[in-house]
């Protein structure tokens, strides 16, 4: 009976999360369209629905109606599989996101390790897509993605280790509990946050680190030969990953579902969940807004400057940050 319950709960949670990726992608894409439009002094989408609200939904359905084209010489199996690998990496990492108290799909003790293990899988998908497309732009883009994401994973993970050392846990729920008691992690780990933010932008290929697509150089990088829903999955995965990275940043550094003022003690159960969801989504979408703002402002970093920054600046900084944190924890018995 217990096993049946667990399986049922697992199926429900995964289905809900897979379904959640779709509106998340729609909302993030819509936000990007509208916010960048405002920053570039134009209207943005304003035809479909009130204030063009359903533009990204229509974009999503448009992918279904498009011709699915595959290059003659593409490697069929891997070409088909690549979008799924990228999409599943994004969707699977959603399992451990702490949306609200009682609203974590899988609340297990190595949530942080799981997250960074799974989100790193998308690089395999991009590399495979680049290789299978039988296109030189795709190949260059795929290799760039491999170099970039593997390099940036190191400072990204090291910046989080500082948080883990301080919080003393690898579980997202307990980490948020620690932040409730001691104040948000951003107060304790500001340098860690800076490294995490830069590295996470590189990890999900956002401007100014969007070397992988690099539309003015590589046309569309690994996605060049993709069309229809296959491209749609890449597209979705990218925006879902943006939301997930924002959500994880909120959970690690900005107190997750905690309100900026003390959480009302009487709000337990369902009310507490709703209140937590409100704050979690508010903070996450603020971080998404920040990424969109950067996209409207900054030009792209060059590929060698990007790698130089990872290895020469961020990695030493992350190691020093970790050492100082660890020493402080030992000395002050935090």
């Amino acid at each position, binding site marked *: 009976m217990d096993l049946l319950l667990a399986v049922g709960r697992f199926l429900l949670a995964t289905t809900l999360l897979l379904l959640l990726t779709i509106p998340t992608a729609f909302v993030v894409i819509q936000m990007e369209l509208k916010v*960048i439009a405002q*920053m*570039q*002094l*134009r209207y943005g989408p304003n035809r479909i629905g009130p204030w063009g609200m359903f533009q990204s939904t229509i974009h999503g359905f448009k992918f279904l109606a498009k011709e699915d084209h595959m290059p*003659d*010489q593409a490697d069929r199996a891997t070409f088909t599989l690549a979008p799924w690998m990228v999409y599943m990496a994004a969707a699977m990492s959603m399992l451990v996101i702490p949306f609200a108290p009682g609203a974590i799909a899988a609340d297990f003790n190595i949530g942080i390790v799981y997250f960074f293990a799974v989100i790193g899988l998308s690089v395999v998908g991009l590399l495979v897509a680049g290789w299978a497309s*039988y296109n*030189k*732009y795709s190949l*260059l883009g795929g290799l*760039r993605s491999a170099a970039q994401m593997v390099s940036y994973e190191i400072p990204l993970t090291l910046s989080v280790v500082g948080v883990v050392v301080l919080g003393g846990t690898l579980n997202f729920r307990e980490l948020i509990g620690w932040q409730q008691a001691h104040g948000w992690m951003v107060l304790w780990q500001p340098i860690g946050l800076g490294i995490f933010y830069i590295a996470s932008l590189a990890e999900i290929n956002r*401007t*100014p680190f*969007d070397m992988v697509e*690099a*539309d*003015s*150089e*590589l*046309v569309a990088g690994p996605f060049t030969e993709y069309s229809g829903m296959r491209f749609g999955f890449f597209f979705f995965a990218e925006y879902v990953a943006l939301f997930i990275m924002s959500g994880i940043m909120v959970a690690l550094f900005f107190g997750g579902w905690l309100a900026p003022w003390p959480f009302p003690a009487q709000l337990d159960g369902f009310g507490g969940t709703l209140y937590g969801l409100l704050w979690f989504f508010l903070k996450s979408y603020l971080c998404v807004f920040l990424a969109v703002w950067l*996209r*409207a*402002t*900054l*030009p*792209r*970093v*060059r*590929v*060698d*400057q990007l790698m130089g920054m990872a290895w020469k600046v961020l990695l030493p900084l992350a190691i020093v940050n970790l050492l100082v944190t660890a020493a402080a924890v030992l000395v002050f018995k935090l």
Partner: protein
Amino acid sequence: MTAEPKVIDPLDVERAEEARLRTAAGLSPIGRAGGEYAGFESVGLPDRPPQTEREREVYTLAEGEMLVNMGPQHPSTHGVMRLVLKVRGEVVIDIDPVLGYLHRGIEKLCENATYTTVMTYVDPMDYLSSMHNEHAPAIAFEKLYGVQAPKRAEYIRALVVELNRVFSHGLMMGFLSLDMGGLTPILYGFINRDEVVDMLSAISGQRMLFNFFRVGGVNFDANDEFFSRLGTWRSGVLKTIDMNERILTDNEIFRGRTIGMGVLSGKDAISLGVSGPNLRASGVAFDVRKAHPYSIYPELEFEVITQSGGDVYSRYIQRIAELKQSIHLIDQIVDRMPHGPVQAQVPGIIRPKPGRAYAAVESPRGLYSVYAISDGGPNPYRFRMRDPSFISLQAIPKLMPGHLIADTMAVMASFDPVMGGVDK
């Protein structure tokens, strides 16, 4: 039971036809792998023996090198240019620009047109500086025919070409940023351009291909709408430029990618024939408006601006400085504009005496000149145009080896080529 009619694949028919034509022309058949066109290794290679030493050099691949074909359909080749890059990983070893995809035979069209209608053909050449395209032939034909445009016409001409220079340089800032992945400045550039082309359409009747200059004057006098739009635009333009500049000039990423990138020395620039802002950015103070004055430029006060760097950043800064200088010139022109007619007396069909004339103007991309020969007939016997973008493009294969693919786009955008002018 009727047999299914066999549907012929149109692609097969095309391939068979192509193979037949190739055999007839004595060319080698197209290499096929697995029943398809040539594979990964040979995409971008010309399917004929190399014609020149240079071609042999570019298309011979050493171990670890590959050819990447950029264009003619590529997001940042400024129209329909094709670059064949020889790369080792991300590093560019060699570049072979392939031109001619936008060739419309404009010189020949002009030779078959009357002197008046030539103005309509030169417009779409360098489509970001249509006014300059018309200015040079107008001066050349006036020299041929021996007619002088009235003073007010000369002032209006100078005014519209400077306005044209403003929006052209403004767009260059945007395109340079766009080729580096910055999306926003191009939108600001186009807002500025829209204001200017609305103004120019008020005076000429058209937004892009103005067809405004005439032999011996201009088509219309400046009207109230033009001046009212000019005033509105002038009151806000410096602020707009500053806004556009703030997003780029001091941006750390932008500076990191442009300073010291694609350095063209003044000596090299002169020997390649590069002119205009690209030459002045390399420290050579050559401006046609000063060196060989035409129109009313001797009467206006301005300095030749130069930069010392010769890199992408210098070329960008040079554009901004010239943009502000153009606004300064516009102020002077509007201030001193005399009254009077805008068109000299010329017949409907102009038949100059046999002779030849040369006229050069300073276009936003450099020295733009026209050489016209008359045989006494109603159309030019020979009509030759020197387009500055064509010359500037020669610098790119010289500058790029050793840099990255991403820099190719930045360096190319910094020369601001317009393929309509390159391919004519």
